[in-house]
Structures are given as structure tokens and as C-alpha cells.
């Protein structure tokens, strides 16, 4: 939370940090105000205005739903061939505040980078914590990172950085698998400063970059699996707005058939009356069908279990459906059956859930 106080009017405005989440409270609080008007500005255009009437000179507005509505381009529609692309799951939003106390008016504005995601309210959900991903090399893969302005991302081949990507603007970026080397794992670092070359440039790799007195911290560990090719490959958006992928093992399918309606005909001309009146032949029915597929990620670590857990609550889950005739990836939206999940204290455990495939169209009358 940030605070600004106007000496003339005595108005204090408390407002969110420069990094905010659209599904957490986004409170703008005015203290010592008679009225306050909060405008949400995107790309220089006012989108909404919220009037705040204080009680005892204090009032607040929670803008989270307005911010949620600003994300009109949510989805996994990323280009896996683009080495780096800006994610649509974050944006800069300017909040413009006009408050009045008596005859004094105070106007201010601030900008937050808003992520289409949420953090747990217990404060232990570290947005910048090191994550552990799995790269199934037979499937399309990309990973998301939140990067601060004027930094660089170093991609390791193994633990040693081998290439770099400079970041000028704050934001969430999607990085393609092409940034990663052939090693069994890769560590991705954030380098907080301008990357400077020493004797050699980075034409070949980053073996000889100048070590300055700046922080270089690991963000990700990506393990590569180039064998697995059977199962259902899903991708989803996790709670932090990042894109996630996993190849699951498939269990036995269940097929639910339900009756839509059943009826008979009463126009007598419908029936062959030569052998007596056979009502039954006039009975008609209409059905609907749903398929449910159990999926499993066997023996994942506790960290990976948490990572996979987001697939069961993500609003956007898609199933890989191969490539079309133009060699483009095809993805199908799927649902997850609501359930209760148990995470035990074992180091390695299975993660199991039920996938609901789209309703199967059937003829009806």
C-alpha cells in the first residue's frame, strides 16, 4: 500500500502498490475527505468513474471488479514460435483521484501494473518465488515470467547462463522453448541491471559477461522430458496469470447419457393400423451425452503438486488436439469436474483429477 498526503487540504489517499492483482482487493481509500471521485484510465481514456461518499471523512472504493473487466483478451492464444511476447494477462492502469475537503480540492493519480490473477491472502504466496516447470519436449511449450523494467533475463543451459534477453518495460512476458538449451534442465535468472559485455560479446554465449555488483537471482527451474508422448496434454492459466502446461496420464473414460425428453405422437395417421393400434411405435426420445476422463500426474513433487493444483481451479483449461493441415496447433476448451483434493506429506505423490470433455452433439427430434 502506498500513501500520499496533501498538506493544504489535509487529505490522505491510501492506494495500492505498483504491482497489483485484479482478483485481490484494489482499495483506494480517502481520509479527511468530503467527496472523492475515482476514475480508471486506460490508454488515456476514462473507462469508469466511481463516486465515493465518506462516512466520518473516510471512504474507500474497491476497484477490483472494474480492473477484471479491463482484461478483454484473456486466453492461451500464444505463438509458440515467437521467442518473447508480451502477455495479455497484465496491463498498466492509471487511477485518477479527485478528492475535496471543504473548499480544498486535491487531485492525484497513480499507476499500477495489474496482473490478471490473485495471490493468497495469507501473505505467503510469493509471486516472485522460484518455480519448477516441466518441459514435455514433444509438445508445444512456453513459460511466463513477470519482469521488472530495465532488467535482463538470463537463460541457463543447465545452471550456467547461456543467452540473455533485455527487458525495458515492466510486464508479464511469454518465452518460447527456443530460448532453452539442450541440457536436461535449465535455470532462468533475473539480472537486475544493464548487461555489460567484457572481452567477448554474447554472440556465442554468456560465459564471459561482466560480473557487476548487481543482484542475479534464479526465477525458474525447467526440467526437460523428451520421452513422454502419451496422454492428454493440457495448458491453463494459473492463479498468477502465468501460462502452464502438463502432460497427464489417462484413466478409464465414463460416458454419461441423459434424457432430454421423451414423448409419443397422437396424430392417428402416424400409425399403421392394419395390425391394430400400436401406440409404442409412436414413442420418441432425445438424449444428451457427456464424457469424463480421469487424468493423473504420477509422483510429482510437493511444489509441482501445487503447480498442478491450479489446473483444477483455472477458468481457462485447454486440451492439445494435435496439429491441423497447416501444421498449426489445435487446442480444445475443456472443463474440470469439481472435487476435493488431498495433498499428503509424502515427498512424491500422484495428482489425480477428472476432465470433462465438451458435450457430444447428438441428433434430437
Amino acid at each position, binding site marked *: 500500500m502506498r500513501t500520499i498526503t496533501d498538506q493544504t487540504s489535509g487529505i490522505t489517499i491510501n492506494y495500492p502498490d505498483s504491482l497489483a492483482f485484479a482478483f485481490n482487493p484494489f482499495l483506494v481509500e480517502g481520509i479527511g475527505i468530503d467527496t472523492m471521485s475515482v476514475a480508471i484510465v486506460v490508454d488515456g481514456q476514462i473507462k*469508469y*468513474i*466511481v*463516486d*465515493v461518499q465518506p462516512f466520518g471523512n473516510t471512504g474507500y*472504493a474497491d476497484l477490483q*471488479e*472494474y480492473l*477484471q*473487466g*479491463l*482484461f*478483454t483478451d484473456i486466453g492461451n492464444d500464444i505463438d509458440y514460435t515467437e521467442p518473447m511476447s508480451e502477455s495479455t494477462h497484465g496491463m498498466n492502469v492509471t487511477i485518477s483521484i479527485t478528492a475535496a475537503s471543504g473548499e480544498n480540492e486535491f487531485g492525484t493519480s497513480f499507476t499500477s501494473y495489474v496482473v490478471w490473477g490473485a495471490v493468497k491472502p495469507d501473505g505467503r504466496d510469493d509471486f516472485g518465488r522460484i518455480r519448477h516447470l516441466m518441459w514435455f519436449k514433444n509438445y508445444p511449450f512456453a513459460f511466463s515470467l513477470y519482469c521488472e523494467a530495465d532488467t535482463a533475463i538470463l537463460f541457463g543451459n543447465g545452471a550456467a547462463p547461456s543467452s540473455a534477453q533485455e527487458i525495458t518495460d515492466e510486464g508479464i512476458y511469454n518465452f518460447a522453448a527456443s530460448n532453452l538449451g539442450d541440457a536436461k534442465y535449465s535455470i532462468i535468472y533475473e539480472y537486475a541491471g544493464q548487461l555489460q559485455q567484457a572481452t567477448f560479446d554474447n554472440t556465442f554465449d554468456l560465459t564471459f559477461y561482466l560480473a557487476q555488483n548487481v543482484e542475479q537471482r534464479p526465477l525458474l527451474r525447467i526440467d526437460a522430458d523428451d520421452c513422454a508422448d502419451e496422454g492428454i496434454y493440457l495448458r491453463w492459466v494459473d492463479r498468477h496469470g502465468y501460462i502452464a502446461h502438463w502432460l497427464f496420464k489417462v484413466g478409464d473414460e465414463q460416458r454419461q447419457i441423459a434424457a*432430454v*425428453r421423451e*414423448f*409419443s*405422437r*397422437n*396424430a*392417428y*395417421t*402416424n400409425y399403421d393400423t392394419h395390425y391394430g393400434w400400436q*401406440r409404442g411405435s409412436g414413442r420418441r426420445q*432425445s438424449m*444428451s451425452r457427456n464424457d469424463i476422463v480421469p487424468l493423473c500426474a504420477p509422483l510429482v513433487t510437493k511444489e509441482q503438486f501445487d503447480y498442478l493444483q491450479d489446473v483444477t481451479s483455472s477458468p481457462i483449461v485447454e486440451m492439445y488436439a494435435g496439429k491441423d493441415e497447416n501444421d498449426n496447433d489445435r487446442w480444445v476448451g475443456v472443463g474440470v469436474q469439481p472435487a476435493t483434493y488431498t495433498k499428503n506429506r509424502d515427498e512424491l505423490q500422484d495428482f489425480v483429477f477428472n476432465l470433462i470433455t465438451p*458435450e457430444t*452433439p*447428438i441428433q*434430437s*427430434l
Partner: protein
Amino acid sequence: MTYEQLYIDGVLMDTDEKTSILLELKSNLFADISKMVSNHTYTVKLPKTVHNMTVLGHADRPANTSVWPYTFHSARFFRNGVELIKDGRATLLSAADSLDIAIVWGLASPFEKLKGDIRLNQLGGGESIPWSTVNTPDTPSAFFARGYGYVGYTPWINDKTDEGWKGMDVTHTQDTVTAYHVNQGYTIDTGEKVGDIVNLNPEAKAGWGYLVLPFHLTSFVIMNHVVGGDGNNRLWSILDAYDRVLQISSASTSLQSTLLSAPANAAKLVININVVASQQDYVTMHRSVDDMTPASFGGQAGTSGGKYIHPSVSAKFVLEKIASKLGVTCQWSGDEETFINSLAIPLIKKKANSSSAALSANAVINPATDMGGLTMQVVGSNDIFVETPGTTVNQLTVARDCGVSLDVQATWSWDASDAVSHSSTEAKYGGSSRTMYQFIYFANYIEMTITRISGDDEVYIIGKQSAPSAHQVDQYSELLNNRFQHTIAGYGHIDLHAGDKIEFELKNKNGKLQDMRLSDGQINAIVDSSDDVLKGNNFPIVDNLPDIKVADFIKFLSAITGTWPLQKADGDTITFVPIATLWANIPNAVDWTRKVIPAHDSDKPKELDYKMDGWAQQNWYRWADDDTVIGDYDGHIDIDDETLDKSRDIFVFPFAATDGRNIPTYTRPIAAGTFGGSNVMSEATTEEPDYNECKPRIAAVRADANGKAELFFDINMQTILAEKYAHMASAMQDVRIIKDDVRLSNIEILNFDERTPVYLAQHASYFAVLEIKAAANGSAEVTMLKIK
């Protein structure tokens, strides 16, 4: 499996399993005409997703300043790819666990625009037309081309006139005998019974002839071998000064050597002769008294005179106004369109507005140095004179009948340097004295002559017309640069008539004064104005239309044409089709036999009703109540069902009916006259008649014998019901309304046409579809009325 897509303001909305969109399609065919309804959905529950709330402008938050809930929003609805709702209007009803939306479509979007309180006289537009006490009717084609104008009718109120008892003594003179031959090729109204007011406007009719003769006490007529007609064209009728029938012949009279004497209060004799069947085509009139004074006795009768008629407006013009102002086009076709296009609304009110009253003209009198006729030119705005502004003319010609306030001013001077004072007087000022010198001469004045179109001249003096005893006396002290300078003026109210000419002449009793100069001459004329339109004012058209709601006007047209509005609105066009269309379409009926989903194990309908909401045993279509209307033009549909209420007014029209051509708006003034030396009452020609507003009227326009437009009222609702509502009335006799579930595809719902009946073999009958409730699962509850 059903794919449903709801777009609001062009954005696809999120839906969930609770979002059931139940469509209700309505036909207005048998509905109470005053309650036309639109297609609508039952409440649609949209989930409160972030996306939905964003589209709705976060209207679920009280602190939000969004106006979303207070406006209508465009809605489109697709079911399995079929656009079932095209031009819907969505409203947010409430935001609770879900967002509750309602959508109306079909007739709704155009009809909603007609609803509300917009009235005919609020449709706006600057149309106006010059009005006078006498207005020449237009030809029908000119009237309909313009959309408004003058249509002949009788404006007189048929008041009871109790003149009290009168004694009369008439001095006879030499008896004169005149044979009058009929005007062939026409008939004229004679009325049908004593007390009728007749309209003396001939109608073309081959083989017939008519006469209208002055017919006073002591006159008598001899009719020999003549045959008359029936109805309104009797052989003869005697009228009083109000054109009211005093005596009348019986129908189809044939007379031989009959003598007809004038009653004491007679004024006119009206005769129709069937010249083919009769041996003679003339009558012989005996007179032994001088003509009535004033001679115009009864002269205001008839419509061709155009006295005191107000402008009329065609119904089509009003419909076009509605289209341009409200953006809704109402469309009839065929006979109904022709009928509506023949209707006109005579303007009963005569309210002035700013454009009608602010009429004026200004002219300057050119400077002159000689006596005699003055020249002038019109300057600036000119609503009164024929002359073009800026052209020097010798006289002004009046363009319209009007009362004006005329203000004429001019300045003139003469050189007195060589003049010698006629006298002097001495005045004492506190001990000292002063000598005053006086100049006595004849002053200049301007004579304004109005030459009436009738040939009479009227002279008005501007300044002072010096009599020999009234010389102008000026003091020496009043000399300005050795000149005496005068401003002369004249002001007053004058009645002008179109064609009158106004001339100005500078005069002096004694000739011309030395170095006389006239300058600064001005003429200002302002036409009389008040809250009412006065003679010479422009008559505002739209402002004087009846105070009737636009929706009521449209419903009225729908009622008198026996049409109903289709739900399938094409943009903002409402199409009206005749009720009979449904019956005419029976050969094209669709067979829904195998589409019915039975509710019982038998071939009976799911539900059967025997009553139509809102109908009684006697269902009245009434004209607005107006005491001045004598005839009965209301109509009723009778339903032989004693379980219904006795009687009900289905629709009371916003207009009153009209007797013939009589729009009773003025009371004829009566003045004393003389006849044969005796004092009698007669119609006054100079007095203004009293104006009384009657209920709004509407009537058809046709050409009279002179080719001019005249009103005639021929809208007897009982006749219209018999002609246009006959099918509907017979279907209402034994009402059988069934409800059944019918399997209708989305395409069938989309293409559903109220004009097409439905055949059901289960019931071996034809039905009109009144209502379809279409759910997502493909079955629809359909309400149908048995029509055959």
C-alpha cells in the same frame, strides 16, 4: 444440444445453465386494439461473470456512475445459428444472484417510439397557410400534393333558433312570373326530413337537374309534370335562412300542376328534377314582393363559398410527419392505403403561434419636392403587399385579407426666409417685453386613398387637413435655419382586402409653399394578432392538429381499415394487414398435425378455453362523444355468448363522427333585415360569427361539382365491421382456443407468419396462431384460435 448466443450492444454475453431464454411471440390479431403487444422474452438470467458485468458497465455496483440500467440496449439472439431476435431491445431489470434482463422485439422497437405522450399537434414543423374569413378550396389533387390546404365543408352550428313570435305585413307590388330551367347534369341535397341542415353544393349526376331559388312569403311555385328522386335528392324542399328544411316532398314524388306556397320564414326552394322521366325541366315562380334586404339572405350557405372554413390536413401528411419526427413508418397497402390516403382532418382549433402572428410590412415614401402623388418602395420584410421590396411604385397592392394597424409618418419643411410675418404680439416678462411674430399659412398633409376592389374609395388624412378657418400658425422662434419643419402622422386600424390599392398624395389647400421638401416618409403595417388566428394571419398547420396521441391515431386508422399490425417489423416500418387476409390464406395453411407433442393419451388438445380475454357480448367501436353530431355512426360486434359481460367499449375513437359535411365550428350571425316593408331577421353579412371548438373530426375528401375538394363523412363503423370484420366476428361466435406443445424448429419460429393459418388433423380444423412460447428444447407451447 442447443447453442444459444445472446448479443447485447453487439457483445456476446456469457450464459450458464440457468440462462433459459423463453421466447413469447404474440399475434395482435384478436387482441383488444387498444392493447397492442410486442414479442418478448421471459426474464433472462445472465450469470454475474466479469465479462457480463463489464458489458453492463458494472451496473451492479451502487457507487458506479454507469447509466446502463436506464437505457435500452440492442439485443440479438441466435439459437443454433438462427437469428431469432434481430432488432431486440434489452433492459436490465435487476442485479441479484444473476443479472435479470428482459428483451422485447418485433413490433416493440417501432411501436415503443409511438407510445408515450407525443401528440399529433407536437409533431412540429413550420407549415402554415394564409387564412381569411373566405378561403377558396383547393382541388383534391393540389390538396393531397401539398398535404394540407383548404377543403370545403359547412362550418355552421345547427343551433336551435327561437326567434320568438313575429308579426309581418308585406306590401304587394306587381306580380312577376319567371320560368326557371334546371341546371342539367347535377343534383343537390334536399335533406331527408324536416330539420335537416342541407349542404347546397351540387353533385354531378347525369339525367338530372337542380335549382336553388329565393323563396319568400307571398311567393309561390307551380310545378307541372316533374319527377323527383328519393333519399337526399327529393323533388323539392323549402329551407329557412339557416338552410334548414322547413318542408320537404316525399320520396320519388311525381307532381302534376302543383302549387307550392312559401311559409312565412322561408328563404330558399331547392328542386331536383329527373329530366329523363319528367315532361318539363322547369318550374314557374310567382313573385309579388321586392327582394329581401339585405339581399344576401341565406348567402352563406353551401361549401363552395369557403366562408369560415379552416385548413384541413391529409391523413397521409400526418403519417409522413410521424415518420420524419418519430422515425416510424406505418404501412398499409391496397384498398386500405387508398382509403387512408383519401382522409383529411379539418383543423378545428385555430391557435396562433409566433410564425402566424408576426406579420408586417414596411415601406418608405420617397422624398418629394412637388405636391401630388407620392412614390414609395417596400423595404425589408413584407407579408402584406404584392410589391417587391426595393422597387419604386406609385401605389401599394394588398396581397391578403387582413386587419392591420397602419402607422404613416413623414416630415416636411418650407423656406420662410422671404416670408413676412402676418402679425405680432407683445408679451410682458417681469417688466421687460418681447415681441412675438406669427406666420399663418396652410399646412401640407398626405391623403391616403384606399381603392377597394369593390370600387369604393376610402380616404384617410395623414397630418391635418386644413379647413379655411384652421390655418397653421407658427412662431418666428420656431424657425430652424429659416425653415418651418413639421412631422405629420396618421395611425389607425384598417381592414384590408386582397387586391385593395393604397395611394398617397401630398396636398395643400392653397398650392405649394416655397422650397417645400418632404422627407423621412415611413409606412409601417402590422397585421392584427391574438392567441387565435385572425383574418390575414398564417394558419399554423401542425400546431392545430387535434390533441390526440400518435399511438391512438395509428390505432384508429387500424380500426377503421380493419387491419392489424404484423409482429415482423421491417426495421422501423409497421406493416398493417387486413384481418380478412388470415381467412384468405386458408388454402395456404401449414399442416402442423405431426408436429404436435400430445399432452394426453388421446387426440385432445392440452388445454381448451372458450373465452377470448377482453371481449363482451356487445363490443363497441365508438366515435368520440360530440353533442353536435345527430347521426349514429358507432358499430358493435355481437357475440352470442351469454356467459360474457353484457357490453364493453373496445375502442373509443379519438375523433367524433360527422354529419355529412358539417364541421360545426361557427354560429351564423343574425341581423335585422327588411322584406316587403316588414322587419325580419336575416343572416348578417358584416358581423363576425361566434367560434366554438367541436371534437376533432376526420372525413374523406372528394371533388365537388366545381372540381374543388370537399369533405364528406362516410365512415359508419357498423358498415366497416360488417365488411372488414365479418370473418373475425363469426370466429368470435364460438370461441375455441387451444394450447398444445408443438415441435417447432428455430427456422419455423423465425419464419412464423401470423397471416398463415395452421391446420391440425387431430382437431380437423384451421387455427390462427395467437401466441408461441418457444423454449430452448425445440418444443413450443402454441395458443391457437379455431377459425374454421
